[in-house]
């Protein structure tokens, strides 16, 4: 394998109801998902060069729905979610998320927790058994505003805190870094949510009532 150009570290920090750190896990992330590799490849081409209307690329959103990339056609399919092409793939804001996700378990880009481990995180579409925001309540997703230069490379840091707002402990066994992706204006309005990275948390962490857990992904772009 060639020298690494990008490596990723996942840090998990659990705090008690008084804000004291009670547990820290730091582990290398293993890989991007297959969905990410597919989206990245598809985004190299405009709608005018992607042959359609048969789907040229297919990736899956966090709900496991296929998103078809079909190239431009005057007669797009009447069923299924399709993009003519893929443009933005790192969207991280809470606004403009496509409507189907606004009633989903979690409804905005961020670092999502899951209750179960994923059999194969590389092929996972999101965290396994995503935990509802009525159980773990999210803070705002923090994402980079500029690359941070270090002696070993540029760092991009993503972070999100979740607080257990129930009266029972919650177990987190997987997490996913979720971005928005969209096609051009002819594609359905809004961003679809997909997981660029999925990791299992081993051993699982327990978040007691009123405790919080912060997930931080640090991407190092080596120089």
């Amino acid at each position: 394998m060639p020298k690494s150009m990008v490596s990723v570290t996942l840090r998990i920090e659990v705090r008690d109801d008084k804000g004291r750190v009670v547990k820290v896990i730091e582990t290398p992330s293993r890989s991007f998902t297959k969905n990410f590799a597919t989206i990245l490849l598809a985004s190299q081409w405009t709608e005018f060069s992607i042959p359609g209307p048969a789907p040229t690329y297919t990736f899956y959103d966090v709900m496991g729905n296929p998103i078809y990339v079909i190239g431009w056609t005057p007669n797009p399919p009447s069923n299924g979610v399709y993009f003519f092409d893929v443009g933005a793939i790192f969207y991280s804001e809470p606004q403009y998320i496509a409507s189907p996700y606004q009633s989903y378990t979690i409804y905005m880009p961020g670092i999502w927790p899951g209750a179960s481990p994923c059999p194969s995180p590389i092929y996972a579409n999101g965290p396994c058994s995503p935990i509802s925001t009525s159980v773990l309540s999210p803070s705002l997703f923090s994402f980079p505003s500029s690359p941070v230069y270090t002696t070993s490379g540029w760092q991009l840091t993503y972070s999100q805190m979740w607080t257990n707002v129930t009266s029972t402990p919650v177990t987190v066994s997987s997490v996913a870094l979720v971005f928005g992706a969209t096609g051009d204006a002819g594609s359905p309005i809004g961003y679809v949510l997909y997981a660029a990275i999925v990791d299992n948390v081993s051993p699982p962490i327990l978040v007691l009532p009123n405790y919080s857990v912060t997930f931080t992904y640090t991407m190092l772009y080596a120089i």
Partner: protein
Amino acid sequence: MSVLAARYRVEVRDDKGRLITVLEDDSKSFTQNFMNLLVASHYNQNNAPTLVVYDVLGNAYYTGYTASPNVGVPFQLFNIDFGCWSYFPHAYYWAVPAIWLGTSPCANPALANGPCGSLVACCVVFVNASPYPLSPSNLNQNAPCDGIGQCSPSLANDSWTLTVVDNWLNISSSPVTVASMALVFGLYDIKNMNSCSMSPFYAAIVDNLPTPVTVSPGWYITTSYTIYFPV
């Protein structure tokens, strides 16, 4: 643990197709320009940060919409679609994706805006101009993925791979020295997402060759970048 790596390969062949030189090594890093564009692509039109980005010629642009000239919010950060590329360096030439070549090594490839020295492979004549010495020979708009790209990721033993290959022919009457190479992408502003006129062009990866190579008249130089996603 690596989640992404890249490797370049350069082959020089003579006019009879005989292999003269092969250079192959790991790519070292993305450029600072790529990093700034990547960061800006996380945002929407209302709040994208203002970060400076230089195109291949060294012209300054800004991400977001508060400074001018701007590239707004980058829409297709990795575009190599020849059909939607545009004039470069001016209206007499048309830009060719995706691996551009220069005659000199770069002092610091991570901070370079493109291949260094004179640009010798980048473009084809659009009208009334002398051609660049290296002309693309595998670019084909009728071929899948323009004949230069990979249409779907390959799953190798331990990674998915994506490869881009440019084959350049020396059409001049003089030898050409190549000492640096760059993986160049075109940019869209998200506000122009429906247009088909990609510009400006920026280098996401720049590498110096360990030793410069000479491409004699009638000879070919094949350059490739392979991106690895370890699994």
